[in-house]
């Protein structure tokens, strides 16, 4: 029996997130944390929290789960796990252990689907050197899956989104446009090649990119997910008190993402992200409308945006290309803070 997980998800291309405004109201009610060992907490909108255990060791802790982004259960498990582990890599950490988090409609779907999702997650965890040492499931529809992951990092070597410095070059390690391709797939408009490529990229661990960052002593990076390239770049610019300029013509795109955007296949999340960046971004008059919307396209399990000293940029790119991230590209730069924290051209 062939199960198409996407048929269980009602929420078209428009994402299923809780409005962050409402969430903030709730988070505000939580007691304040004054523990000096919290090195990265909730305030800075980073990819994961970091807690110091001793002077040489800190724990990076993150969780992420979501409803299916593809049809095949095994593939969904792989993507969800890759996405969860990615937050550890983005902070400069080494992922160590994880717990499965699963919501599954046991009355609606055969249990093989459950085991396929878990198997996909386990495979990616194994590839990343992560031991899954437990988990928790509740009955719920549609299914949702992800991991809570713990990693290690040296307290002095944490990579955060506030680490971008004027003069840095910005490197993106995976092409974008995945949100557009997946929306097109649901409508039967995407080519098989494009869908395969989008799935391949979502299943690709950010591990080799993280290894390169450590080798070159990078201080600032973030992973590109739901806020899109532009949204995450804006957060990075704000956190580092700098201005980030993105040259959209240099940004690598998946297959025919641009043509699909041109035909109007622009998911709702891209419009939401545009609302979010607009008042803080200087958008060049010459920038193509569809490229602007691609900058706002929400990604699942996207690549890393690395802020690298300009002098090391070519070496890092060569290293990334060598490890299989062949589409890694220099897409912008960091400068002293100007009126707008983000510039798109």
């Amino acid at each position: 029996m062939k199960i198409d997980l996407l048929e269980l998800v009602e929420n078209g291309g428009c994402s299923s997130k809780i409005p962050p405004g409402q969430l903030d109201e709730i988070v505000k009610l939580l007691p304040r944390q004054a523990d000096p060992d919290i090195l990265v907490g909730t305030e800075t909108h980073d990819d994961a929290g970091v807690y110091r255990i001793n002077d040489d060791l800190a724990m990076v802790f993150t969780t992420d789960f979501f409803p299916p982004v593809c049809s095949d259960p095994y593939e969904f498990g792989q993507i969800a796990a890759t996405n969860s582990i990615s937050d550890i890599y983005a902070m400069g950490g080494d992922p160590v252990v994880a717990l499965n988090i699963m919501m599954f409609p046991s009355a609606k779907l055969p249990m093989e689907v459950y085991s396929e999702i878990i198997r996909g997650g386990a495979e990616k965890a194994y590839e990343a050197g992560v031991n899954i040492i437990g988990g928790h499931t509740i009955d719920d529809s549609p299914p949702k899956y992800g991991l809570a992951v713990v990693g290690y990092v040296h307290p002095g070597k944490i990579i955060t989104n506030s680490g971008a410095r004027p003069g840095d070059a910005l490197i993106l390690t995976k092409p974008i446009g995945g949100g557009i391709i997946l929306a097109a797939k649901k409508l039967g408009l995407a080519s098989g090649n494009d869908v395969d490529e989008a799935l391949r990229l979502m299943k690709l661990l950010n591990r080799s990119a993280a290894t390169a960052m450590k080798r070159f002593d990078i201080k600032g990076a973030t992973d590109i997910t739901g806020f899109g390239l532009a949204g995450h770049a804006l957060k990075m610019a704000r956190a580092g008190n700098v201005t980030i300029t993105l040259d959209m013509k240099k940004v690598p795109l998946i297959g025919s993402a641009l043509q699909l955007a041109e035909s109007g296949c622009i998911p709702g999340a891209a419009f939401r992200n545009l609302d979010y960046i607009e008042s803080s971004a200087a958008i060049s008059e010459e920038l193509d409308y569809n490229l602007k919307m691609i900058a706002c396209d929400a990604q699942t399990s996207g690549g890393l945006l690395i802020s690298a000293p300009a002098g090391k940029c070519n070496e890092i790119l060569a290293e990334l290309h060598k490890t299989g991230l062949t589409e890694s590209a220099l897409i912008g730069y960091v400068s002293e803070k100007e009126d707008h924290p983000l510039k798109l051209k």
Partner: protein
Amino acid sequence: MNIVDTRGLLCPAPLIATRKALKEVAEGEKFEVMTDNKTSFNNISRYLRDNKIPFSATENNGTWTILVSKGEGENTYTEPEAYCTPEIPHFSKGDFIIVFTSDKMGEGDEDLGRLLTSNFIKAIKDLDTLPGRMIFYNSGVKLGSVDSPVYRDLSELGKMGVGLLFCGTCARHYSLEEKINIGVLSNMFEIAQCMASAGNIIKP
């Protein structure tokens, strides 16, 4: 006239249909797009506005009908805010409020005081964490008037999800009731309640 009926479809299908119709109809022609999805309606409006394509829209019982004109022309869309409320502010708000008791900041030269207030309000937009509310009383209410130099900044903060409370008595005193069209004109009870429940109060 062509009617593109996208009722029952989820985004981005309605936008794709709109884009397709735009390509197919002749220059100067009009067509109608129907959708029963609010998000799709907002996104189509946004798309048309951004691409400077004239349109007008009506809503009836949860179905929006958008009349699109291909080709050059005046945009007949007059009140974007009425249709396109930003649904989801992503901005994080802190447990603090800012209270403006005057349109000037600090003691000393009055022009300097006004300039400082302007700069302060512009800076708030760039804070990592926005205030939960901003409260204005006495001459502070002048900041919210349409002819105030920070009117646009305050209106943006409002759209980013910051509640703006203006003291009604004060607005009446300075005859500004007609000129304050952002935030809400409030009363002392609400203002007192808001200050009493805030984690921190910043008074520039």
